């Protein structure tokens, strides 16, 4: 082959047969195409969600709803007033379970809900305030004392009935606000029964959310920006979540007005169970509420 090495040259002309030149060029282009196989992904930001977390280290049931000095106070009268939301619900009880008091009896756990509120924008974009350090347990029975559950009930000693530290359950140090409801007899196995319980619970949470929205940004213990990103040229992946949509305890509320809320959302049953697309930010921001 041709080998050429030059130390110092002013002007250089090289002549060679055409087939050699072609070969040389071919090798060069092949090298370039190899580089193209792994380009740096072009990231396109679609939406941004600002996430601010506020901490509470105590929850009290008093005569006023407020968040002050990292203590959440809940008005005890909310429990009585909540009954007016839906006539199916006969009684609401509020209870605070501290991390060391988990050795207590709870009724069937219908849902575990974090407290978060939308400050700006709709679900999936804008600003969200999130309350860290506590979660809400919605539990319930009907008037005859039958547990609201469909396939296996989780009533019993709280410590034994919850796998703490999973993605869907609180960690060991979190305070639990237990909202216990009693619904009309026989409605536990109908769609309207559990749904009424969730509506009442959502109304109580709305009162807490109103206070959460007022907290100034500088009091946040943690802030993050979540971005919906599309990466051009990368393999496209779709996540499919198959959720229960059979009625009575098998239902989801899609895209409510508040993160993880009920009000303003549409039931997956009413949507005909057909696939609906959510963005990653919308899922993070509580776009799906379980009525399971």
């Amino acid at each position, binding site marked *: 082959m041709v080998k050429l090495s030059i130390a110092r040259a002013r002007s250089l002309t090289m002549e060679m047969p055409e087939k050699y030149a072609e070969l040389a060029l071919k090798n060069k282009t092949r090298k370039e195409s190899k580089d193209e196989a792994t380009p740096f*992904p072009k990231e396109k930001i679609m939406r941004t969600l600002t996430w601010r977390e506020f901490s509470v280290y105590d929850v009290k049931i008093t005569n006023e709803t407020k968040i002050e000095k990292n203590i959440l106070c809940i008005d005890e009268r909310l429990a009585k007033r909540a009954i007016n939301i839906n006539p199916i619900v006969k009684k609401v009880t509020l209870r605070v379970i501290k991390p060391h008091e988990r050795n207590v009896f709870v009724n069937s*756990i219908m849902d*575990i*809900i*974090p407290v*978060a509120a939308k400050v700006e924008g709709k679900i999936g974009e804008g600003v969200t305030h999130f309350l860290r350090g506590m979660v809400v347990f919605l539990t319930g029975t009907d008037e005859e004392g039958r547990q609201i*559950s*469909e*396939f*296996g*009930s*989780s009533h019993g000693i709280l410590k034994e*009935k*919850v*796998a703490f530290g*999973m*993605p*869907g*359950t*609180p960690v060991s140090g979190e305070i639990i606000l237990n909202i216990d409801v009693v619904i009309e007899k026989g409605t536990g196995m109908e769609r309207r029964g559990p749904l009424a319980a969730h509506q009442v619970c959502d109304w109580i949470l709305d009162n807490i959310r109103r206070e959460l929205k007022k907290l100034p940004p500088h009091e946040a213990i943690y802030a993050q920006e979540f971005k*919906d*990103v*599309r*990466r051009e*040229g*990368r*393999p*496209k*992946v*779709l*996540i*499919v*979540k*198959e*959720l*229960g*949509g*059979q*009625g009575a*305890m*098998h239902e*989801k509320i*899609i895209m409510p007005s508040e*993160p*993880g809320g009920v009000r303003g959302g549409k039931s*997956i049953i009413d949507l005909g*169970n*057909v*696939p*609906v*697309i*959510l*963005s*990653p930010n919308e*899922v*993070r921001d*509580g776009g*799906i509420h*379980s009525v*399971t």
Partner: protein
Amino acid sequence: MGIGPSTKETTLHHMNDPMVEIVRNDRSLDLVGIAVVGSPQDNLEKFYVAKRLGMLAEALGVDGVLIYAEGFGNQHIDFAAHIEELGKRGIPAVGLTFAGNGLVVENEYMEDIIDLDKAGEGMETEIVGQNCVTKKDVIKSIKILKKKMKNKRR
């Protein structure tokens, strides 16, 4: 059969969903979105829904699908139908579910299914949140999906 305490996904689970969090932060993947699909009561409706999902995936032109179902028993009829519709269109899919004592239905496209059973009992344990998707399951499923997508491109 349906959704029991251990397989149900709470509202907190959906917000903390490890599947969404890990896939969105993986720089070698382009997450197009999350398709939320219900599981109807009626058998005919189940296949109706599955067909719509197949068409949606086809229209989006996706290279791979991660699918997971909450609950077990009759929910697996749709689960199998979804994977079949995707398989017919040549879209690689990895499924995650609580298989319990085996799935009630199976088909030729269901090659890669990850069982979410954590207790190892193969039945409903009545402990909230026990048999749900964790980071470990997700990482495993992504690994399999990447391999499948690579094989398909060849």
